[in-house]
């Protein structure tokens, strides 16, 4: 005769009992609001984007499942490959420059930390661009390099220097946008680095000083290892910002001259909102997401900071 016993209970029921007994559900309850928002505004749109990338999307005439055809078409499209190349160029310019400049400024302010007023003032000056919106940044820098009335053009004319065409020059357009982006982003990263530098125990530097360790050695042996978590945070943040750069490119050059500064996010925008090729745009979005994810994880691995993510 069949008798109920612990051994007969389905494993799932046992797991549920254990779950309830251990009050794990309380923890889930605490994060439920976040999970709901994350699911609604991040996970679902990303999932739906991936789903859309498999369709020739046209709800009026009827969407058609095309499998990976949108991805194949992307890599057959010279314009996409050009946008991909430009994105990599842009990331290569922006990420190292932002981190280097931010760290340099943070170190300088760290050295001057004795003068509180000067330090605070410099902090405010460096951080203030970050408070501006992308449209203000783009318009300001576009005006700086205006070939008729720009301040840089005026400077060149005053000193009789040969003035490049700047934003109208395919060689200069992307570097100028990258420079404007660095100027915009550097303040926040600087604050992050400053906070990390402030957390380093002073005793380490005092011992190093007594032992006569030069600054470059102090930087490599003490500072860099101890600010690694901040470095990772800034790297990931800057990498993501650089990969999804859109506003400043749209407003400063519109992707031009020609397509010299057209980046992936802009390519995606034209396809989605100008040509209404939603499937193709979604596929480009998935590629962008994949690239950002892979490079972020690569950065984590290279910096040896796996534990920071756990």
């Amino acid at each position, binding site marked *: 005769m069949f008798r109920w016993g612990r051994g007969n209970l389905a494993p799932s029921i046992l797991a549920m009992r254990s779950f309830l007994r251990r009050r794990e559900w309380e923890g889930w309850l605490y994060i439920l609001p976040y999970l709901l928002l994350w699911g609604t505004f991040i996970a679902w749109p990303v999932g739906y984007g991936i789903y859309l990338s498999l369709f020739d999307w046209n709800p009026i*005439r009827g969407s058609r499942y095309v499998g990976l055809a949108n991805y194949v078409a992307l890599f057959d499209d010279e314009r996409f490959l050009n946008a991909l190349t430009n994105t990599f160029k842009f990331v290569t310019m922006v990420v190292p420059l932002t981190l280097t400049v931010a760290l340099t400024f943070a170190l300088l302010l760290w050295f001057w930390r004795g003068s509180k007023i000067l330090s605070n003032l410099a902090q405010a000056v460096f951080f203030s661009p970050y408070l501006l919106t992308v449209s203000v940044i783009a318009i300001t820098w576009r005006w700086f390099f205006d070939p*008729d009335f720009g301040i840089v053009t005026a400077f060149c004319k005053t000193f009789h220097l040969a003035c490049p065409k700047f934003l109208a020059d395919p060689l200069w357009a992307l570097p100028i946008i990258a420079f404007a982006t660095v100027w915009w982003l550097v303040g926040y990263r600087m604050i992050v680095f400053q906070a990390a530098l402030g957390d380093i125990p002073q005793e380490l530097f005092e011992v190093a000083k007594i032992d006569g360790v030069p600054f470059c050695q102090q930087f490599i042996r003490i500072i860099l290892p101890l600010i690694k978590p901040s470095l990772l945070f800034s790297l990931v943040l800057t990498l993501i910002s650089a990969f999804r750069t859109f506003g400043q490119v749209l407003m400063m050059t519109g992707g031009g001259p020609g397509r010299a500064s057209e980046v992936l996010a802009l390519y995606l925008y034209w396809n989605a909102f100008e040509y*209404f090729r939603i499937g193709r745009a979604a596929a480009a979005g998935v590629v962008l997401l994949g690239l950002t994810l892979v490079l972020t994880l690569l950065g984590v691995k290279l910096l040896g900071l796996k534990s920071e993510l756990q």
Partner: protein
Amino acid sequence: MKRLGVLFAVFLGLGWFWGLAQSVKIEFNTLFHEADAKAMEDIVNLFRAAHPEIQVELVQGRWEQYYAELRLAVIAKNPPQLGICHVNRLMEMVDYLTPLDASPVGNLLELAGIDPSLFPEATWKAGQINGHQYLIPLDTHGWGLWYNKDIFVAAGLDPNKPPQTYDEFIAACEAIKKAGFYAFHPAEDALPRKLRRAWEIFYYQMGGELFDPAFTKATFNNEKGLKALEFLVNIFNAYGWNVVGGNGYAQFTAGQLGMLFAGNWFYPTAKQSGVNFGYAPVPNLFGIPYTWGASHQLCVPLQPADTPKEVYLGAMKLARFITENAYIWTMSGGHIAANKEALKDPRLLESDYWKESGHILNDMIQKGLVRFPINHPRGSQLENAIETYIQLAVVGQISPAEALAKAEAECNKILSEK
């Protein structure tokens, strides 16, 4: 307490009557901004005063993503009841629009009493596709020649005789350059699409066509196309009449530019700048004095199946009112009204705009000298392909011949895609 109850009932009753009186709600979406948006708002306000039974919500000023938003609104079954569509966007947008002569509630044109004979035949027909009328013409707009009279005087030119032939034009440019000013800017603020329009003007003036009639292939990579592009490139380079990347609007309003090709929408800006300006037709440089232009038209986006007839009729009533009062549109927005009766309004004919520039643009329109952009389901992509390489030629990155060859190849690839 009883009194309060009665008062509440009366209040509810009034609310119900008010609701009945305003039973039709129309959303009207446009892509207009600045002076255009103000002009449209003025017309809609007049309509609101004349037709209190129809509530109109006017949403304006989203030029960049307007068409994408219109499509998405139709897909979401929450479209505006009235919208604007550039005539050259019809083929791209047709799936998202209601055929006005075959709507689910009948022939809206007849129901609203809209008379096609009030509009220029070509402009009216431009709103037809697949045997149906989708659009009601609102205006025609286009580029003309704006010139600075003071610079003309400084350059020894007659400020009352702007150049109208190739020889006159070249002579004027050289004289202005010699006087120390930017001589000529052919493309407003030099955005890629503006450079393309300038090239199109030169090319159309030579009798060229961008594509074959069936849109199977590009037809601009030829001697005429090359000559037109070389002329455009030389303006910014060899001729020294302007600089690469120069903004014609800014140069003109700063009093630094002699002549500018720009649209009629430049009028309020030119006026405010204080520049002593004149306006003339685009000169006949290469044979036929064509200019670039387009037409804003009114449309009824595709409505959900259960949309009541009253809503359609309300939208059409508003559309008719707008076209009949388009003199305001012309006076304030600068675009030439398509409705012939509106163009006869004495308030328009006496306005500064009409006297200073409007009548000249209207003359170009009536003579059929305004060439509309291409109308193709992938028109935006095709135009982008052309303007990308034209811009690269202008900035000196590639030669004009190379630019045309690349643009042709890309256009043909777009046309060959399913």
